[in-house]
């Protein structure tokens, strides 16, 4: 008869978001460190059965899909880290809320050729209080700006780490993630009242 599987309980799951403008390298970054090929999950936007229909100008039977790519890193047998690339289109902010809920932190990839593309993500995480770091993706090792110039251009607080990276490079992305988690650790430590 059916036996209840006695494997150990599933690991604790944590998630980190990877945000940035279209083509900034989100999926590339996820793929660089994931132990599985990045998977794609889709959320369907549909007007069917929703209470909050706003069908102005939209055929009521229309649905559309938003793709989110993600990867996985097994930290140890009881701890698994998921990396979620956020949907690139800004009109899907409501999906960001779901992604950001319970997230450990976020990496905002900045492309120095299109810095403005990362403003929206930075604003979002700042307002939400989600810890984040800025990873300046250097294509072809071409670094035109210093991180200080990027910090000024993006108007980023001094405590937010900014680092250069190559989203294709495993070691480089690993360093970005470590920097993020160390940043979170500093925030958590400073929030703990001294005993």
């Amino acid at each position, binding site marked *: 008869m059916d036996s209840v599987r006695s494997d150990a309980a599933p690991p604790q799951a944590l998630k980190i978001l990877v945000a940035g403008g279209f083509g900034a390298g989100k999926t590339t970054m996820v793929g660089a460190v994931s132990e599985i090929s990045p998977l794609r999950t889709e959320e369907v936007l*549909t007007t069917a059965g*929703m209470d909050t229909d706003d069908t102005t100008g939209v055929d009521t039977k229309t*649905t559309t899909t938003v793709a989110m790519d993600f990867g996985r890193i097994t930290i140890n047998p009881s701890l698994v880290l*998921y990396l979620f690339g956020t949907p690139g289109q800004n009109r899907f902010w409501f999906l960001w809320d779901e992604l950001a809920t*319970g997230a450990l932190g976020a990496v905002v990839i900045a492309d120095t050729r299109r810095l403005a593309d990362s403003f929206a993500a930075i604003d979002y995480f700042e307002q939400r209080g989600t810890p984040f770091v800025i990873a300046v993706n250097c294509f072809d090792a071409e670094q035109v700006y210093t991180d200080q110039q990027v910090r000024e251009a993006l108007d980023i607080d001094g405590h937010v780490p900014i680092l250069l990276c190559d989203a294709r490079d495993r070691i480089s992305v690993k360093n970005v993630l470590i920097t993020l988690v160390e940043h979170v650790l500093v925030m958590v430590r400073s929030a703990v009242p001294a005993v």
Partner: protein
Amino acid sequence: MVADRSELPGDDGPAWWDHEAGPVVRPYMVTGGRVDPGNDDFDLISHVVAIISLAAETRSPEHQSILALTQEPRSVAEVAARVDLPLGVVRVLLCDLLADGQIARYDPPDTEELPNIETLQAVIHGLRAL
């Protein structure tokens, strides 16, 4: 199942879908039109695991596919990606399986707070060891 966008009626105003948004589909056929998984929403990183054998009867082939996948613990996001169904659809199916006592679910800590220091240190240690 995938409709050609050019066949869609209505050219009033700018379309809110486009190439980036992906294909226009009718994904809720599998759930019999149900879109609401109930008040029991599964987080993307909730883990689910089958608690019955594969031989058990399920409501549909899609339920069966999920049961097969969750013979080991899987995150909801991973289940959705691997059965190639939209998240909302998978959530409805997971609720069915849960109601039928065929899967168990493990949620991430229900909190807006950041993980504790020990967990963060474990993550840093694990990343360094990659």
